[in-house]
């Protein structure tokens, strides 16, 4: 016994020094081995796929390389060669971007788009200076003015009203408590908009006209329309979806029933139906004499539609949170809204990012459905273009162009969502 103990007992007296890990087996050859040719079956698959890709590229390339950029009609294109007839894009790209927006005013949607890029930068990337949020806050008001035109004064009045309402809220919050103060702020806003803003705006317009040419909704088209509907729909449906998801979890019977009913109804109806309702039915339902812009109606319907889906996605995220998170928030004395804002929603939304972005991408592409109710989005326009005598018969070039632009933006959204998921990853398991 003692002998065995003598042989197996072991004490390390000096610690082993740290060593470098073995250098990775790297190099192109190794990569090919590991990823493409690691068995005879995989090697076969690789060769087959390479063959298919090469064939596809060889098939399409001559069509693309022999493209005609300058031509007045499809007929002319065909006479110049057998390649793609990109002349149609060259001639009609402005129409695809702006629809029937007046030619002299095309700078307005363009400026709006640039402003949009600046406005979403601080929302998407924390590295962007926070001061840029001013651009974000002002964007909806000025975008409305830039796109539809008219006098700037009503827009400024609305902004002023919001400012006054907020000032009233801040003034009252210290004295009367948050709830009363919010009501006071709202009251100031409503009184301002109903009583003061209208006449004041008229008076000011007379003295200092700040007018842009009014552009009616039916002239807004192409990707401008896609973006007007898509961006409004996306930015409005997220907050609405969050409220619906929270409402669905509520303990208050009526709120819960209302939210569940709304979500289930909207999910059970095709978007096309809602769009028809927007284009035809709402005119009957609204009091006679109200003119309610068609694009605005479409935005409302698209927003409602997407918000129901987002609500369900977020509900999944909420359900995935352990109950302990709610309890810890409660036990600290946070109010319901504080707990939601600080603890629950940041986590639930993080879990829901892929689903939410999925809905956003769907919404963005679904804007093309408005072609069916007669709005001239890119798809509607392409039908119009193909109906002309010059371009009758152009298919691939038009739809390829539209698809490419949609793809670029949808791919961007998808990439951003992956980036966001990585950035927000804090658990290291």
């Amino acid at each position: 016994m003692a002998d065995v103990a003598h042989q197996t007992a072991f004490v390390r007296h000096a610690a082993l020094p740290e060593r470098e890990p073995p250098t990775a087996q790297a190099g192109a050859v190794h990569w090919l081995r590991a990823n493409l040719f690691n068995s005879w079956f995989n090697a076969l698959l690789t060769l087959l796929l390479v063959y298919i890709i090469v064939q596809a590229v060889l098939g399409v390339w001559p069509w693309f390389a022999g493209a005609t950029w300058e031509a007045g009609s499809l007929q002319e294109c065909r006479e110049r060669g057998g390649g793609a007839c990109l002349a149609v894009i060259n001639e009609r790209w402005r129409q695809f971007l702006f629809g029937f927006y007046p030619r002299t005013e095309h700078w307005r949607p363009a400026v709006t788009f640039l402003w949009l890029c600046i406005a979403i930068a601080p929302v998407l990337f924390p590295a962007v200076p926070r001061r840029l949020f001013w651009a974000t806050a002002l964007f909806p008001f000025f975008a409305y003015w830039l796109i539809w035109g008219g006098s700037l004064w009503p827009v400024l009045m609305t902004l002023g009203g919001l400012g006054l309402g907020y000032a009233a809220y801040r003034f009252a919050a210290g004295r009367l408590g948050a709830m009363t103060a919010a009501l006071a702020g709202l009251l100031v806003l409503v009184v301002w908009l109903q009583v003061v803003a209208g006449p004041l705006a008229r008076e000011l317009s007379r003295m200092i006209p700040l007018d842009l040419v009014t552009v009616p909704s039916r002239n807004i088209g192409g990707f401008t329309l896609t973006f007007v509907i898509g961006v409004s729909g996306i930015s409005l449906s997220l907050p609405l979806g969050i409220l619906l998801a929270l409402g669905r979890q509520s303990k208050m019977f009526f709120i819960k029933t209302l939210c569940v009913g709304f979500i289930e109804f909207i999910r059970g109806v095709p978007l096309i139906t809602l769009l028809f309702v927007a284009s035809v039915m709402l005119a009957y339902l609204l009091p006679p004499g109200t003119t309610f812009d068609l694009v605005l109606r479409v935005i409302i319907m698209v927003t409602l539609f997407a918000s129901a889906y987002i609500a369900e996605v977020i509900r999944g995220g909420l359900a995935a949170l352990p109950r302990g998170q709610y309890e810890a928030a409660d036990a600290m004395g946070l109010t319901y809204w504080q707990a939601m804002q600080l603890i629950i929603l940041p986590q639930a939304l993080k879990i829901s990012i892929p689903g939410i972005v999925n809905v956003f991408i769907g919404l963005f592409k679904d804007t093309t459905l408005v072609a069916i109710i007669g709005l001239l989005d890119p798809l509607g326009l392409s039908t119009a273009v193909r109906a002309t005598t010059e371009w009758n018969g152009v298919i691939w070039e038009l739809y390829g162009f539209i698809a490419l632009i949609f793809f670029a933006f949808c791919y961007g959204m998808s990439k951003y969502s992956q980036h966001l998921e990585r950035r927000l990853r804090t658990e290291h398991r």
Partner: protein
Amino acid sequence: MAEAILDPGELKRPNPSALRVSDERAIEIVGMNKWFGQFHVLRDIDLTVYKGERIVVCGPSGSGKSTLIRCINRLEEHQTGTIRVEGVELTSDLKNIDRIRSEVGMVFQHFNLFPHLTILENCTLAPIWVRKTPKKEAEEIAMQTLEKVRIPEQAQKYPGQLSGGQQQRVAIARALCMRPKIMLFDEPTSALDPEMIKEVLDTMIQLAEEGMTMICVTHEMGFARSVANRVIFMDQGQIVEQNAPEPFFNNPQSDRTKLFLSQILGH
């Protein structure tokens, strides 16, 4: 009931002169009953806790220990009887509830740290939003508290990067940052590996020395012996026996207590 039983000798001994108990009432529970549906979880609970008391609650699984302490900060709602905390009665009045919750700290079995916030943010959140402490001051308080639980160097990390024992000490620090008058612990060590239990218990002992009123659900009988001034035994939703630790362990009166102690102490 395979709880790790720590030998009391291993624990830091509290300084007895620091353990004073006043006759001011911190918590007063009178004739409290609670049901989950048809199930009568808590039956006629009467319990008065004085300021500075360290109470250990033990009992078999499902006896209602968690439910009892969760009623004190109204994570669970009681149906009959009254609960007063620091003189304020718990009713459905939300203002009162939030006020009491900000005075009562709670530590959970599974820590329940907020994984999307850093340790420091976990600790400053409630002071900033509930107490309206300026951020700077809240961070100073948080750093002091983290030093007290001996993990200031982890302040910028996320909970997922810490060990279980460290997470539980952060959870204690998070509760302490609100400067609570009462601390509730629900089995704070039973999700921990044995070698981490001691670091958490030491932190709790330190808290007891500072005169904190504590109610602690635990099966760490070593801790109960050395720190508690009163041990409460619960079974089937009732308080079956309560006593100072010495007589409680050496001379239990009820048969159920004897049975429980023999199981848990492994005699």
